[in-house]
């Protein structure tokens, strides 16, 4: 716990100008993608995402989070995600066309990186020991928003990676009491729900095995399970605070 906030302070204190630059670049690219989507912008966005993931792996985990246990595993995790973006670029998948669906929800997710520091401040923390826009969880939320707003076909491996990250976030809430991580879990679950609903609607046209009814039932069961997990974590969280 102590190490966790110490590493975050060191990271924020040393890199805040670069973080602001990265966040601004991200905002600019997102705007361009909305207003004037072209091939160059899409390529730029993918390169930017790869850069962002490598930044998290290299700068955040390998340099500033060295005191934490398992920083190398986490760095590897984010480096793999960066490689997936590069592969995506090389193979020309998930072409980042604007789909126009769920734009309000996606907008909410785009604003999340800005919400993170605010949430930290609201919880009574002070700079530099706050969650900032260029941190694993904020980047994960931003990626989800990007996939939701712009990709016709979601890169499923990447989506699953983020889903895994969200679950680790939830476990962090459960064990260490870092409520900011709720934000990620709360945005990933509805996003995945939207992905799967969309998918079920797409395949409903052709004969499929199993029928869309079974798929929807499976989705409902999953939602129920995830909901139970959430509730249990929340209750445990209250216990944690009550015990303090």
């Amino acid at each position: 716990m102590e190490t966790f906030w110490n590493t975050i302070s060191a990271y924020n204190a040393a890199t805040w100008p670069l973080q602001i630059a990265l966040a601004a670049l991200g905002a600019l690219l997102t705007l361009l993608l909305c207003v004037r989507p072209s091939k160059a912008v899409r390529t730029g966005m993918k390169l930017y995402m790869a850069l962002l993931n490598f930044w998290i792996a290299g700068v955040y985990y390998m340099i500033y989070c060295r005191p934490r246990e398992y920083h190398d595993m986490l760095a590897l995790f984010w480096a793999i995600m960066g490689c997936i973006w590069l592969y995506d670029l090389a193979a020309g998948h998930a072409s980042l066309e604007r789909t126009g669906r769920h734009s309000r929800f996606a907008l909410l997710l785009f604003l999340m990186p800005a919400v993170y520091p605010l949430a930290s401040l609201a919880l009574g923390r002070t700079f530099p020991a706050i969650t900032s826009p260029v941190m694993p969880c904020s980047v994960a939320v931003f990626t989800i928003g990007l996939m939701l707003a712009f990709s016709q076909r979601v890169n499923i491996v990447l989506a699953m990676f983020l889903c895994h990250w969200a679950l680790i976030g939830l476990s962090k809430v459960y064990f260490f009491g870092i409520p900011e991580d709720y934000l990620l879990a709360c945005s990933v679950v509805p996003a995945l729900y939207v992905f799967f609903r969309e998918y079920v609607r797409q395949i409903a046209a052709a004969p499929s095995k199993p029928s869309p009814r079974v798929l929807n039932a499976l989705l409902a069961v999953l939602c129920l399970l995830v909901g139970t997990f959430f509730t249990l974590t929340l209750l445990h969280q209250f216990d944690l605070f009550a015990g303090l």
Partner: protein
Amino acid sequence: MKTQKELHEILDFIAEYATYLLGSGVHTSRVIRNSQRIGASQGVDIQLSSFQKSTILTARDETSGEVVTRVVRIPALPVSFERNSDLSALSWDALDERLPLEEIRRRFGGLTAKPRIDPIFVLLTVGLANASFCRLFGGDWTAVGIVFTATLVGFAAKQRMQAHGVNHYLVFIVAAFMASLCASAALRFDCTAQTALATSPLFLVPGVPLINGVIDIVEGHILIGFSRLINALLLIVCIAVGLSATLLMVKNSLL
């Protein structure tokens, strides 16, 4: 009495049928019985012996005694139990209803064109399955959750790589590595991390070739049985390699 051309047509169809079954993970003696049943419905005696990559078939016209032989390559198809049941039922229908070859061929085309199981459905159910597997091994609920998402990552990676036609040994190594890497996140928390690590790559275990290999050996098709077992064993070695890559990184915290 059949003309040479008719005999060839029958043999060609049965060759396609038998290799399709062998490619879809059906054990050898069933393929032989099914093929002979279709042959019998056409008044032709079929003998067949199979290896891992190819099959030798001989058709003999029972009235004229004329013989035709072919060696056919076995296609690499995904395992499909639905094809197994449907095509076995087709062979019984052919015999019981004395179907003409044209009709059998038409039904075969219809059955093999049926949609395969939906990949996203498989992805989600495999995640749930591996999670409950973790529970069966005595993992706690945190470990169960982490195994669920780790399996989703590993299996999604496997599906995408297979769709892109990556070498399947490489697919198994990378998928096992990714799943166990994700599961190693459990080490940071106070939970049954060993169980999570152990369970995460188990969705890759090649159960169908393993059991088919044993069945083949017991039924006397020892050569192909061993080839199947060695195939399965190689895949298991690949899983072990992927898992060990993760274990080497985290071994100090497991002792």
